[in-house]
């Protein structure tokens, strides 16, 4: 990789607005089980290689510090990085259009099906697989985008506080953010 550089910054490929729109439309229709930010990662970083790991995680970190649905935020930011203001509008619009139509259709069908026990069991199984997706995504992101021992420690502390102990995210971010940035600054100064 690494060859694709545009005036919008390093680490992104050149794509047309139409191709960007279609890619996010497809992504929206296939991103089952929530965790949409992970789907954007798999599609844009791992499969299409339109944006590299570091740039993606940097955009995601910016998104995490502001309110909003995570998948939509990362679509705005990746769209913006790839195609400027037009991309920032087209990517989330395309990503939400399919699910919007589908969920209204599914809601209408579910209204007729009623309440079957097996439906809940199937949904539980789907949810467990979805969790596997977030785990694999997080582990891949650390291995490729933040492999230093101190970064792995920061990620582990984040999981302990937010995931295991269930602390609210904002104070954790305010505490760990400056520490982690300080460590990164020291690494950058050393070379």
């Amino acid at each position, binding site marked *: 990789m690494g060859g694709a550089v545009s005036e919008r910054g390093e680490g992104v490929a050149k794509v047309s607005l139409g191709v960007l729109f279609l890619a996010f439309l497809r992504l929206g229709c296939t991103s089952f089980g929530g965790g949409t930010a992970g789907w954007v990662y798999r599609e844009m970083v791992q499969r299409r290689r339109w944006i590299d790991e570091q740039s993606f995680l940097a955009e995601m970190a910016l998104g995490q510090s502001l309110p909003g*649905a995570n998948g939509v935020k990362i679509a705005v930011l990746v769209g913006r990085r790839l195609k400027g203001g037009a991309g920032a509008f087209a990517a989330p619009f395309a990503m939400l259009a399919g699910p919007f139509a589908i969920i209204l259709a599914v809601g209408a069908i*579910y209204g007729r099906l009623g309440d079957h026990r097996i439906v809940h069991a199937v949904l539980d199984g789907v949810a467990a697989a979805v969790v596997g997706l977030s785990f694999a995504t997080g582990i891949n992101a650390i291995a490729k985008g933040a492999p230093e021992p101190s970064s792995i420690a920061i990620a582990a502390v984040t999981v302990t506080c937010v995931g295991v102990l269930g602390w609210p995210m904002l104070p954790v971010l305010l505490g760990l953010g400056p520490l982690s940035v300080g*460590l990164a600054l020291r690494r950058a100064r050393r070379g």
Partner: protein
Amino acid sequence: MRDNLPAGLLALCAVFAPLSLLSFGGSNAVIADIAHQSVAVRHWTSDRDFADLFALSRAAPGPGSMLCALIGWKVAGMGGALVATVAFYLPASLLLFAAARIWGRWRGSLWHRAVERGMAPIAAGLFLSGGVAVLRVAPAGLAAWIAALAATLALLYWPKLHPVPLLVAGGAVFGLIDWLGVVR
């Protein structure tokens, strides 16, 4: 229904637009508020209905927060679904776009790079935390943990594996176990 349609649309805006700007850490942060507003304050849905709509929004493709479209639909049909969806996604997106423009001006400076690289492991940790949080409240308990870890290992071993067959397999296995239990 027709004559208080504008009132319904306004109420949807009044609920979802502020929540858009309060959803720090993602839309999961405001699911509890959406439930409270929809059930107790505005009487848009019953408890039972809300639980169903929530489960559906997780099983369907797209962000889990598409729940707001389902609630809007219940309140005021297609117009309600559109208004609730735009009210929930637009304010936060505009704020983010403005912030990204300002942030982009410092691209390339040493401390800009340090902030980006320093926040990366935290972002990765939040991916993992989302999974842990779901498992902690999963009705299937230990079985959900085992299935989730199996799915994780499968994806790490075969990175090109498309997620949809994995989700279908998860649903099929749990459904089959439940069905066998019922038969027996």
